[in-house]
């Protein structure tokens, strides 16, 4: 069974509709977080549209709501108000189970702190989404994961555990994992935040390469140089989008 087969089955199950071409469509979205006895409004009403194949950087100062936008787009968080449609799915209407399954198959997420499972090898970490989605046989999954690790330059470190890899290498494993199910959308929350500048550049070039192959790439960064390399930059300040356009 291929990713596209499972993807189609998933779409049917979740009631996919046509969004007029947009891959990501946020409308009047707000997000308020409880903080002890207080409430913190992370987003104060944003509208955002991203088309397939775009490479978009989300920038803004600390606490502006950048990561919140990503979390809403990936279904990690739910909006307080407004609608979030991604890949034809209304995320509000999906249960946690459905979101988990959808993410595993359609969205690749790269975290700032890698978030690899420490007791699994690089190959096993990269295979995990395929295992969860039950795509292909064991051999096929391992082969695909190995291919992805090869793609990110770690073909000779399949059996290393995360503690035996450098920060950059761990992040590459994380990218390989994110690519496991051939997602339509790759999302990175400060994907180069913990890397040195040279490694960060290598990482970005990898993302650009994936984008060139047709994958939609969305990443949060505080690095303006990296932001400048995107096709479009969305600036968020105090929970509002203040500008969106080419860098």
């Amino acid at each position, binding site marked *: 069974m291929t990713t596209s087969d499972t993807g189609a089955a998933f779409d049917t199950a979740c009631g996919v509709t046509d969004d007029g071409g947009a891959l990501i469509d946020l409308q009047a979205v707000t997000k308020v977080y409880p903080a002890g006895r207080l409430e913190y409004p992370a987003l104060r009403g944003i509208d955002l549209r991203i088309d397939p194949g775009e490479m978009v950087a989300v920038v803004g100062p600390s606490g502006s709501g950048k990561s919140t936008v990503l*979390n809403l787009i*990936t*279904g*990690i*968080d*739910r909006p307080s108000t407004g609608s979030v449609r991604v890949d034809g799915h209304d995320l509000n209407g999906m249960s*946690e*189970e459905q*979101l*988990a*399954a959808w*993410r*595993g*198959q359609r969205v690749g*997420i790269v*975290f700032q702190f890698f*978030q690899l*499972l*420490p*007791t*699994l*090898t690089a190959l*096993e970490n990269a*295979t*995990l*989404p395929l*295992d*969860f*989605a039950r795509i292909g046989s064991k051999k096929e999954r391992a082969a695909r994961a190995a291919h992805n690790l090869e793609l990110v330059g770690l073909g000779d470190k399949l*059996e290393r*555990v*995360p*503690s*035996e890899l450098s920060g950059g290498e761990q992040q590459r494993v994380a990218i390989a*994992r*994110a690519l*496991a*199910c051939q997602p339509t959308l790759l999302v990175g929350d400060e994907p180069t935040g913990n890397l040195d500048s040279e490694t960060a550049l290598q990482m970005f070039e990898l993302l650009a390469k994936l984008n060139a192959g047709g994958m939609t790439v969305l990443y949060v960064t505080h690095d303006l140089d990296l932001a400048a390399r995107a096709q479009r930059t969305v600036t968020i300040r105090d929970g509002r989008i203040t500008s969106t356009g080419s860098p």
Partner: protein
Amino acid sequence: MTALGRKSWGDLRRRRARTVFTIVTISFAVAGLWLFAMPPLMDRAMQQRIAEDRLHDIRIPTSDVVLDQADLTALRGVPGVEALQARTLYDTEIVDGESRRDVLLVGIPDWRDQQVNVVLVDVGHEPGVDEVVTDRMNGRTDRYRGDIGDEVVLADRQGRPRSFTVSARGDTMLFSQLVAGEEAVLYAPQDRVNELAELDGVNSVEVRVEEGANAADVAAAVQRRLEELAPGVTLTDIADVRSGESWPGEEIFDNYTVLFYVGAFLALISALVLISNTMTTMVTEQRREIAAMKAIGGQRRQIRRSFLRTALYLGVAGTVLGVGLGIPFANLVLGFIGEQFFGVTVEWGVPLSTVVISVVVGIGATALAALPALRRAARTSVRSGFEAGFSAGRDDAIDRTLRRVPLPPATRVGLRNVTRRRTRSLATMLQITLALGIAIGFLALGATVADVTAATWDTVTFDIVLGQRSTSALDERAGEIIRSTDGVATAEPVLVNTIEVDGTQYEAFGLPGGSALSEPDLAAGRWLQPADDSGTHDVVVIGRALAAIADLDLGDTVRAQTAGGPADLEVVGIDRRLLNDGTGIYLPLSTFQKVLRRTDTNVYWVVAADQDEAGIENLATSLEERLTAAGYPVGTEVHHIEKAANLESNRVLVAVLAVMAVPIVLIGMIGLLNAMTMNVIERTRDIGVVRCIGASSRAVKRIFRVEALAIAAVGSVIGVPVGYLIGRLLAWLVTDLFHYGSVPFTFPWPAIAFTVAATLALAWLVVIGPVRRAVRLQSGVALRYE
């Protein structure tokens, strides 16, 4: 409160589940300590009861002797006598259609002026001419279920039914105990009892001695005076002299409480392991905070004190809860034991000494268990603390081995997670090992006791015991009647009486030389032989427990006190069997008759030709009827019925022991729940991550279930041999306490397999709560979890 003080308080509120588990665990251990309250409470209850009952200090069983008021006054005038009462005790039967039940009828000379062994009436009125008072233990032990207003039919000496009405319920310390072990008890006017028993006088003289008087001396003096007043009176058994403030069954109770103490100690050890584990976890997860405190000037002792304060809060809370649990626990267990085995109602009590022990141990032991964690907190350097994260994977031999094993993905993750927090996993395995080991140990002890008891009963080769009732001993004519009864294969006369050795009374058996019905298992020496009947000196074979207690060996001379006076007996054999708990005394029938100055016997052992149980019971009934009709009223004991009753009684005891093991097993399970809750909490972010990459809630649950099961499985595997060792230790303790010597040890594999399976099942269930909580979190909340 200082900031550090608030921190200690905050530590508790931070991980509420863990705090609750730890407090509950400490409370279980403290509650277990309340087993130490049982001896003083039991002693208090017994002393109170002794005072209320006016329990005798001396009881002299006599042949039928007529004592008028002047005689009684003379006996009461013996120096040292505070109170004296004489009564008739009559062994008879309750007739209920076809069935008959043994009952002791206790005569009350003057209901309103009871001097010794007072019958305390719960409800009802004193009995009239055709009325009786039923002992309240009768109904509780199913000996006799009649109540006020019911008719009860008793057999007189000729076996004729005589009808009475129950007028009241009451009890006495002395006679109520018989209900627990032997027969029903009813109380009736003395005259009525004599009428049924066809006796003229009394056969039991009961004395309370003045404070400070020597009971043994007073007993001897009363006996001498009795012989002066009633020449020809004989003792039918050795006088029962109670020493000091002792109470009936005290030694056995003390022996069993040792087992309870062992249980409490084991519970405490289990709890300490869990507390240590909890505190270590707390310190580990706060390494960054510790580093921060040190970076801003915090000193080691201040940091240690902060965590010690947290531990003490836990200890105080656990102790308070534990005392609250321990009081009802100890009192309920003691109440059950008192009623079931001693026929005594033990009132609830709270000994101050136990409160003090609970507080000192509960709080002190918690602080002690926290010491390793405090040390770790003090030693955490600023740098290592700031570099600390959740534990990474290692790459040692265990991890490499695990990686080679092909497993489904969720199982693979779960199994590898066991090695992630190795110390915690090992500590949890240890708790499960302890819990399971202790449970298995108690199971093995129970199985050993049951098997030894059954094996002991199996050494008895006769089917029926016929025992003399009233004063009609079983002479040769009675023997002829017995042997000529249809269905009797063999019958042997036996003389049963009490012998006192070194101040303690034991049951002795006078057997015909070369008795075919006693198959000894000799540890040393020889059995009784026909030649011993006419031997030049008096010989005896003793049980191995008695040999140990009295430090006797082959060739030693036993200076025994009997109802007929002192006797010197040479030990020629030591019997390994555990009949009479290994304290049996066997001597030639002729020797015992000579010592007791009688020519007859009081018991016959009978072997039935038909070994079918129903056939044996019919034969017993037939023998009883024939003998009673011939003027030899007898009581019967059927071997297979007595065996079943004894085994049932042992099961109750084993159940009580099992109750002791329950808190320990619970502590083990709490330990696992605690550890798994912490694992789930710590890996909440991991849960968020795997949910982000497509894991279903089922997969997440499986990860943690596998981890819990793996920990439980390793703990169980080690727990079985540990249980074997603990079982061996407990069995040795019991046999040592009762001087049994070595006994075959039983390790009940089926029960143990079930226990292991139950442990694994519990481990499966225990993680339901924490994992359910974890998968319910939204991924974003999980990812942000700290």
